[in-house]
């Protein structure tokens, strides 16, 4: 029997600009920008499939469209064209990008969790950490204070943040702790999919190790599917089952992670792998 994907994205395109006859066929772009009308094709005809319990790595140079893809999936950026299907939203029969704002909010609060590279995007720095997590629980319809308090405790335990610090705002925390609060917030409503955008960038090695171990544990314990954007190929090698390579808004190569890193087939992927320290 065919395995049903948790997420299926078909022909996703995100562009900024009005487009012209030159860039509509895609072949006349310089990098990801049309030289005539200056339209930027941030994501260009992306097809992605994510399966249950899988970690899908996304690599590519800055500006290749990795974060745009993640943010479009989380409805932070409007999608110009394309369709997306979630197993946990109407059994994967309905396109998620065509939904009303209310339905999109439902998906963000119940089916997906997002951890941004910059914690300021994912957290309210002046609210308490518990308040940040409770916000997500309230958005999913929970109102019982004791129940929410208990859930916040569980989530902070899972990311190894002392419960004695739950009333402190994230602005008092280190970068690694802020990322872990973001992860616990993203996990609050047991989403099927976790989107992680450069979560280990800028963290020192020991904190990075904690976050990596946490990601592995989350996948194992919750059977959650994860899309992981990272510039660090060692992180991708350690965690990802499959990897996608993006360049100029397009997917240029995808496959098993070790095959992509040890036997890259595309010139850019070879260049990327050979740039490893």
């Amino acid at each position, binding site marked *: 029997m065919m395995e049903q994907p948790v997420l299926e994205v078909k022909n996703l395109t995100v562009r900024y600009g009005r487009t012209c006859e030159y860039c509509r066929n895609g072949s006349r772009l310089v990098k990801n920008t049309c030289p005539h009308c200056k339209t930027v094709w941030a994501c260009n005809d992306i097809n992605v499939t994510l399966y249950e319990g*899988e970690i899908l790595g996304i690599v590519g140079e800055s500006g290749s469209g990795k974060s745009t893809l993640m943010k479009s999936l989380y409805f932070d950026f409007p999608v110009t064209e394309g369709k997306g299907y979630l197993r946990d939203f109407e059994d994967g029969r309905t396109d998620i990008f065509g939904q009303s704002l209310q339905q999109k909010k439902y998906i963000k609060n119940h089916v997906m969790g997002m951890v941004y590279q910059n914690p300021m995007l994912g957290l309210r720095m002046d609210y308490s950490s518990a308040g940040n997590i409770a916000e997500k629980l309230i958005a999913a319809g929970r109102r019982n204070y004791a129940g929410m308090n208990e859930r916040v405790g569980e989530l902070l335990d899972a990311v190894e943040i002392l419960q004695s610090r739950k009333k402190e705002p994230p602005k008092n925390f280190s970068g690694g702790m802020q990322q872990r609060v973001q992860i616990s917030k993203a996990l609050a409503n047991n989403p099927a999919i976790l989107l992680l955008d450069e979560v280990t960038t800028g963290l020192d*090695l020991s904190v990075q190790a*904690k976050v*990596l171990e946490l990601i592995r544990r989350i996948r194992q314990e919750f059977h959650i599917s994860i899309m992981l954007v990272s510039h660090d190929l060692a992180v991708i090698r350690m965690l990802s089952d499959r990897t996608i390579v993006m360049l100029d808004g397009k997917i240029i190569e995808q496959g098993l992670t070790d095959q992509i890193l040890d036997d890259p087939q595309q010139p850019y992927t*070879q260049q990327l792998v050979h740039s490893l320290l």
Partner: protein
Amino acid sequence: MEKILEIQGLSKQFYLYEQDREIKSCSDITFTLNKGGFIGIVGTSGAGKSTVLRCIYRTYLATTGKVVYNSLSYGKLDLVRADERKIIHLRKVELGYVSQFLTILPRTTAREHVINGALDAGFSYKESVEKAEEMLRYFKLSETLWDIYPNTFSGGEKLRLNLAHAMVKAPRLLLLDEPTASLDNDTKLLVKELLMKLKKEGTSMIGIFHDLEFMEGLCDHVYNISKGSFQKGEAL
């Protein structure tokens, strides 16, 4: 005899775009591995021995040829063209790969590393702990090392941990990529003893070794790979 692996006309070339040149690693490799068999591969450095194993494990995409694996999960399957999801499943459950190098997540102890291997194969946590401890004992890794991060281990200890991690899922096919390269004689003998035991228990194996003495009594057939082509030799 049931065939577990049939390799037909396998060849691998790497194309380096930066230098605009092609590197031929191995060509026209053909051999068959029976269930419970052990094939040894010898050859000089750079002859293409590891390439063959990596093409079987799909770390490398073979340029031409077939790697037909008789799997429990999907029946006969060409590993060169099989769907990536099937390869991931087979790696978790049926295929093992052991090299002299240990790749491990940071902050993971030896015991956790082996437990993770069992969890990936689908065992419950309780079963995984039992199996992991059994394997660590089987491969004679001292109990004092179980809860230590393995980056401080010696070469022999790392190798035995690698073997325990690969064997905890009881793979049907075990690929050994120069596992004894950096070991002293006593540790080599211990590893040989353990491999003999695995062979008796029915694990099919393909191994790359430099040491002909080590292969004596272990391999059913030895293939000599020279300049990328294969020649079959006698059993040692």
